[in-house]
C-alpha cells in the first residue's frame, strides 16, 4: 500500500558516466599517502571524494552503508598497514569489522567490488594511485550503484 520502491532497476551507464567513489582515508597513513602521490606528481583518478578520518578504526560500517545509500557508486577505506597504526590496533579492529561487513553486503546482493579496503602507508604514493585506479576500474565494470539507494528525493505518487 505504501508502494515500496523497486530497487532492482538495471544500471544506466552512459558513455559520460564516471563513478563517484567515497574514500575514507586514515589521517596518518593513507591520507599522507594520497598527499605524497600529489606532491610526487603521481596522477590518480579524480573519481574519489576523500573523507579524512583519524584512523580506519573510526570508520563505522554505518558510514559505508550510508555512503552507498545516498549516492556513492563505490567506497574505498584505506588505513595503515598492520603494525603501523598510530593508535596501535585501530586498523586491526577495523579489519574484523570490514571482513564481516564485506561478507554481509555481498550476501544481500550488493555486488563485490562496490566496497573496497586497502592498506596504504604514508610512503606509498604509487600504491595509492594504483589502488584508486583499481577501485575505479572495479566500479566502472559494475556500472552505477543500483542497490540500497535512497529514493527520498525522487518524485513519487502519494498513496
Amino acid at each position, binding site marked *: *500500500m*505504501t508502494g515500496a520502491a523497486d530497487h532492482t532497476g538495471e544500471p544506466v551507464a552512459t558513455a559520460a558516466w564516471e563513478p563517484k567513489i567515497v574514500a575514507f582515508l586514515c589521517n596518518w597513513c593513507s591520507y599522507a599517502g594520497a598527499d605524497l602521490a600529489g606532491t610526487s606528481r603521481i596522477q590518480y583518478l579524480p573519481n574519489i571524494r576523500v573523507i579524512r578520518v583519524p584512523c580506519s578504526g573510526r570508520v563505522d560500517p554505518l558510514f559505508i552503508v550510508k555512503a552507498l545509500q*545516498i*549516492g556513492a557508486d563505490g567506497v574505498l577505506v584505506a588505513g595503515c598497514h598492520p603494525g603501523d597504526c598510530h593508535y596501535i590496533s585501530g586498523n586491526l579492529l577495523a579489519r574484523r569489522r570490514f571482513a564481516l561487513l564485506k561478507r554481509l553486503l555481498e550476501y544481500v546482493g550488493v555486488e563485490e567490488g562496490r566496497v573496497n579496503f586497502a592498506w596504504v602507508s604514508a610512503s606509498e604514493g604509487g600504491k595509492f594511485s594504483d589502488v584508486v585506479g583499481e577501485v575505479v576500474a572495479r566500479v566502472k565494470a559494475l556500472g552505477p550503484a543500483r542497490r540500497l539507494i535512497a529514493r*527520498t*528525493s525522487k*518524485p513519487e*505518487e*502519494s*498513496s
Partner: protein
Amino acid sequence: MDKGSISDFIRNLQKQYTVVAPVRRRDLILFDELGSSDTPTLEFANSKLPPKGFFFPRSETLFRFSAKSGKMELTPAQTKSKPAVLMGVRPCDARSLVLLDKVFMTEKYTDTPYSRKRANTTVVGMACTDPRTTCFCGSVGGDPFDASGIDLLMTDVGHGYFMEALTQKGEKLLPHAPKTRSPTREELQKQGWIKSKARAAVERELPVEQAETNLENIYEDDFWDRVAAKCLGCGVCTYLCPTCHCFDITDDILDSNGVRVRSWDSCVYPLFTLQASGHNPRKSGKERMRQRVMHKFNYTVKNNDAAFCVGCGRCVQDCPVNLDIREVIKAVASQRRAALQPKEAPT
C-alpha cells in the same frame, strides 16, 4: 451475489475505482491495491495489519521542499483523484475508522491527508462469520455484524455473499455487482443463524466500563509497575492497532530536496515524549504502559465518547511477550479494592 462473480464485480469496480482488498502475501493477509487480474482473499479471519493504513499509512509525504537557487519552494503531496473501494473490511476495523474520524476530523482541525482519502473511499465490509477466540468486539461496543463505518456490507453465506448497501456510497456500488438476486427465505434463515452463531462467539463480558472508572482511582498505584514489568516496549501492539494513531513528523533530505513525512509512532517508545532539555514526562515503562491503557480506555472516553479499542485482538495475538490487553482490562476492573488496601510487595 454468487461467489463466482467476485472477479467480475471487482473488474467492474476497477473501471471507476481503485480497489484495495485483502490479499495473501508471504503467509500474511494484507490489504493491497488489486491489479487488473488479481482476486482478493476474502476467506480469512482478519488481516494482519488493520485497514487504517490505507487512510493513515505507516509513512506518508505531507509535502516536498526544495531550495532552488536559494528560494525555498513547498509542493504539497498529490493525492490520487480516482475514488477507491476498500473491500473486505471486518466490522471491528470499520468501526475503528469511525473512531479515527473523531481524532482526525475535528471541528477545529481537519487532517486533510486523512480526510481526503476518507471522503474518496467507499468501505465494503465483510461481516465476521467466524470470530477468533481473541475477538472481543462485543465487549467494546462492536459486533461481528456491526454496520458502523461500512457503506456496503457483504456476508459470506457459503455459496455466495449477501450484499446490503448501508449508505448512498454503498448503493452506488451495487450496480457493479453482476448477477445479484434477492435472497431466498432459506438463505435469509441461514444468514440469521450465521449471525447469531458469530455473535455468541465473541467475548462480551470484559469489564471495560468498570475498567474505565477504576483507571481514575489507580493512577498512582504500583499496579502499573506490575503490568509494565513484562512489556519490552516494542510497539507491535500500537502498530497493529486499528485505532492507535500517534505519529511523528520528520524531514528526510537528499541534497537540497526533501520531504516532510508523517509516520507512525508509538507511546510505548521511550523517545516518544523525550524533550530537548532531556526531561521526559513518561520516563519509564510504567508511565508509558499507563498512558497506553488510559488513552485507550479512559481519556478517549472523555474526549471522544468511546474507548479506542475495537476488540480485534491483534495486539493479543502478536504481542511478543503475550501481554494480553484482556487480562489488563480485567485486572484494572478488579483493582479498586486492592488499590485501597495496603500496598503489596513491589515486584
